[in-house]
């Protein structure tokens, strides 16, 4: 049923895309399964970095209407990720103050 096609192409864009995909899937597993809130955030950063690799790889290998569009977009992703991390960590500090734990299992006051 599953025939895994190997990359017969010469070394180039697909290799970077596969690397980014593997990194993304590792981060996805971390986000979905971890209990410690900061570990979830670390896995989220892995996913964002995977997307950055994809953008920069596309910017390197494919033409774009304006120069270096992929790199500029990845710079914006870096900025937004830094902002989001700081706000998320402030929320975790509040969470710790309230629940005395950053264990996501313990934060269930909104659950049914």
């Amino acid at each position, binding site marked *: 049923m599953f025939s*895994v096609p*190997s*990359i*017969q192409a010469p*070394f*180039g*864009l*697909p290799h*970077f895309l*596969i*690397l980014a*995909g*593997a*990194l993304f*899937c*590792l981060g*996805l*597993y*971390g986000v*979905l*399964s*971890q*209990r*410690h809130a900061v*570990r979830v*955030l*670390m*896995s989220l*950063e*892995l996913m964002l*970095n995977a997307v*950055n*690799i994809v953008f*920069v790889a596309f*910017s*390197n*290998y*494919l*033409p774009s209407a304006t120069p*270096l569009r992929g*790199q*500029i977009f990845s710079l*914006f992703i870096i*900025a*937004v*990720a*830094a*902002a989001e*991390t*700081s*706000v998320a*960590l*402030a*929320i*975790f*500090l*509040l969470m*710790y103050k309230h629940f005395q734990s950053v264990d*996501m*299992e313990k934060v269930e006051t909104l659950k049914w």
Partner: protein
Amino acid sequence: MDAQQILFYGLAALILGSAAGVVFLKNTVHSAFLLVLTFGSIAAVFLMLNADFVAMAQLLVYAGAVVIMLLFALMLTQRRETAVIGGVNESRSFVAGLTSLLLFVVYFRVVSASPWGTADHSRTVIEAAVKGPGGTAMIIGQEFFGTWLLPFEVASVLLLMALIGAIMLAKRET
């Protein structure tokens, strides 16, 4: 296999190995350190892809600032009795692993079946830009203050909002 391929596979092993360590190690501080290694290796991949400014920004912002913030948060949310031990939600981790594995298989098949072509269309353009005076930083600067001026300013407002928001959330009640 030429030098570029060897470099790529070495960096890929480093990235995926340290990312696996970030996700699977029990000690959260250890995984934060491996996250630094991941970010540094990704910066090296960016250098391979002719993105010198993005590589330096990655090192400065991600490896330099984000990981420091994560370590501070770990320090401030740590109970004295227990170390920062990370565990997984057992019932969810199996489905999560299945989901991400399935996603990777689908993605792999799509990427390897797509006709990317062998011509690096803008590669000569990019490499000429990198070797020019100022590297990609000059071109990115021209783009930021030309085509992408509005997103640039909005991003600075976003950072200001995040700064104020984080301070408001985390300050001590007086």
